[in-house]
């Protein structure tokens, strides 16, 4: 609940056992991401408790795909994900990227209860993607980030968000495969920049392809046979 402030150890002791995961859990505190994206993130993955915002993109040049790509590897590894406030979520695209839809919950229309819903999901879900409503106050944002840090969830705000650990932004996007009246959309190149606080303060930039390389990689043909083959049976004696 966003309105309730959690104060110190007393509040922690009131929470039932097993609901709270310490943020400094020794194992599994970094959720995997696609290898291409790991360059952008200081911990080379989604560190539990961190806030990784995806900057808004009014021109629709690939930020939704970037969000899906961020989720893909974590979901494949067994993490539970939730997406809040995206009524246009493309489930087929998510499944193509490898997101397990049976571990993904959608809250398309949270309405005025946005903060409460996000807070409730942070309590139980590993990765929470939340489309940021326009009238979000900085205090609510800070409280949600703190809650994610305490519960060990990864919060991915999708929209303007102050104070994220890492902010990802799509710089350039190109589509391949379309001609004038022929072809079809095949893959896109996304140039993504990252900046943030602490270890992520130095801006980085990568260029990735979606769908990724494994879908478009040229598979080597059958392994060439060795030229010098050992001869099989040979006639050694005179049959006659």
């Amino acid at each position, binding site marked *: 609940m966003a309105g309730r402030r959690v104060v110190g150890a007393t509040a922690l002791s009131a929470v039932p056992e097993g609901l709270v995961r310490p943020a400094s859990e020794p194992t599994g505190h970094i959720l995997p991401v696609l290898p291409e994206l790991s360059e952008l993130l200081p911990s080379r993955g989604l560190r539990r408790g961190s806030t990784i915002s995806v900057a808004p993109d009014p021109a629709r040049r690939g930020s939704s795909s970037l969000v899906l790509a961020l989720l893909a590897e974590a979901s494949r590894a067994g993490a539970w994900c939730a997406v809040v406030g995206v009524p246009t979520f493309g489930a087929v695209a998510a499944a193509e990227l490898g997101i397990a839809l049976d571990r993904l919950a959608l809250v398309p229309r949270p309405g005025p209860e946005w903060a409460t819903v996000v807070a*409730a999901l942070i309590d139980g879900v590993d990765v929470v993607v939340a489309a940021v409503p326009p009238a979000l106050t900085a205090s609510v944002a800070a409280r949600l980030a703190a809650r994610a840090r305490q519960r060990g969830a990864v919060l991915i705000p999708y929209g303007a968000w102050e104070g994220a650990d890492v902010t990802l932004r799509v710089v350039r996007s190109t589509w391949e495969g379309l001609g004038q009246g022929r072809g079809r959309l095949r893959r896109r190149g996304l140039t993504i920049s990252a900046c943030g606080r602490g270890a992520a303060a130095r801006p980085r930039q990568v260029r990735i392809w979606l*769908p990724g390389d494994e879908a478009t990689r040229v598979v080597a043909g059958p392994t060439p046979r060795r030229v010098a083959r050992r001869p099989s049976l040979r006639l050694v004696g005179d049959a006659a």
Partner: protein
Amino acid sequence: MTRPVRTLLVWCPDWPVIAAEIVDGVPATASVAVLHANRVVACSPAAWAHGVRRGLRKREAQERSPELLLIDHDPGRDARAFEPVVAAVEEVAAGVQVLRPGVCALAARGPARYFGGEEQAAEQIVEHIAQVCAVESQVGIADGVFAAGLAARVGRIIPPGETPRFLAEFPIEALGRPDLADLLRRLGLRTLGDFAALPAADVLARFGVEAALAHQLAAGHDHRPLVPRRPPPKLDVADTYDEPLDRVDVAAFAARSLAERLHERLAAHGLACTRIGIEAVTAHGQELHRVWRHDGLLTAAAIADRVRWQLEGWLCGRRRTRPGVDSAPTSGIVRLRLVPDGIVAQVGLQPGLWGSAGAERERAHRAFHRVQGLLGPESVVTAVLGGGRSPVDQVRLVPWGDERSPARPGCPLWRSSTGGGDAPSDTPGSQEGADQPAWSGTAPPWPGRLPPPAPALVLPTPLPAAVYDTTGAPVAVTARLELSGTPAQVELPGQDPMEIVGWAGPWPLDERWWAPDEARRRARFQVGLADGTALLLSLATGRWWVEAIYD
């Protein structure tokens, strides 16, 4: 040999006709016949008076009674209509067995002793049925169910030990085995008495087991025990509070004890529930009801949690006072009731093989149910992929916890291509190349669907658009899929026109043309814009729409 159980049998004559009157309002006093497979199954007394009999063909029956009303036989209707009658009998006597719709039997000893005699018991039961259900019935009492059934037809009470003599008068057809009756009649055995006189061992040796059983019935040795119906156990729990509950913690405390009681009651019956209905009545008389679904089995703590979340949602909703929302209570709760639904036998829960997986799942489910408590069960959905040709059709959003079944059969995912980027064919729907759909033999292939990558933004309702060619004229497509011009600009409502740098299409789609209401005919295009966006456009009846955005 022990004597067969003294049986009281209640028989409602012409039950299919009566049931039709009760359920569908067909006048039973008129000439009515119930037909099954073109044969008369039952008829009203008026039709009987006209000569309509069971087993007649429809045409023959109409011949005998021209104004005959014909009704289709519906066993479900008969059973439904009989349920109140059984309930009425159960109010007077215990241990009722329903033999078939219209006939039920019970052991006569209990009611006979309670009402001071078999005759009084029979009168009481007939009277009670007539008063409660306004249904005419007859009662017969004899040793054994078979004899009691025959006694009920004539409305007699056969004294103990007299049953074989009573049965002896009946024709051999009363056994209800037409083949055997035909055979015995040709052998000269015309009554049950004749048949019963034969030695049992010879009947078994000559006619087999079936006939030996019939012989026992005919001789009045009906040893089939009564199997009384058990009334369904009452599983719901309710509590009334003198002080209205208007604080969440008080309500949660009440809910917890109620949930534990419900769980104890379910466990006592060896049951568990998959859905739970939570009903609350406020001091102002408002009734609030919500059903929670759960794909697993609910434990006592889970039930308590759900009740607590829902009460929190209600009580917080009251403070929010949104206009137009009448689901929020206006006062405290004075009565709580838990109704288990979707009852299944308790088989125990199977935790994940690796303990942590189960815990993660439990925690996530808890969070989703918490949100469902805040916003309603339909607010948290999960996507299920199915077949279909457009990105909207392929996805069905089901509320969290419901069964994950797709809207259309089929698998929307294409087998990931391994042959490199140039192998897939250029037109969607073409079955060549490495991007062949991963459908098995039973799932439909959905030719014409779009190859991957799928759009990341799918608009639930398409957005109107306009597409212009290089001269600024709107682009149209002829019936032969010829474009009127090269698409050069696309204009979305409220935005400046954008330049098209690449496009592909038209890919025609003519869906469900056999159903005029659902028929959709359109041509689809993929369009790449100068700023790096790509759209999925469709042209239907001369208008352009944005179906999805490749964001």
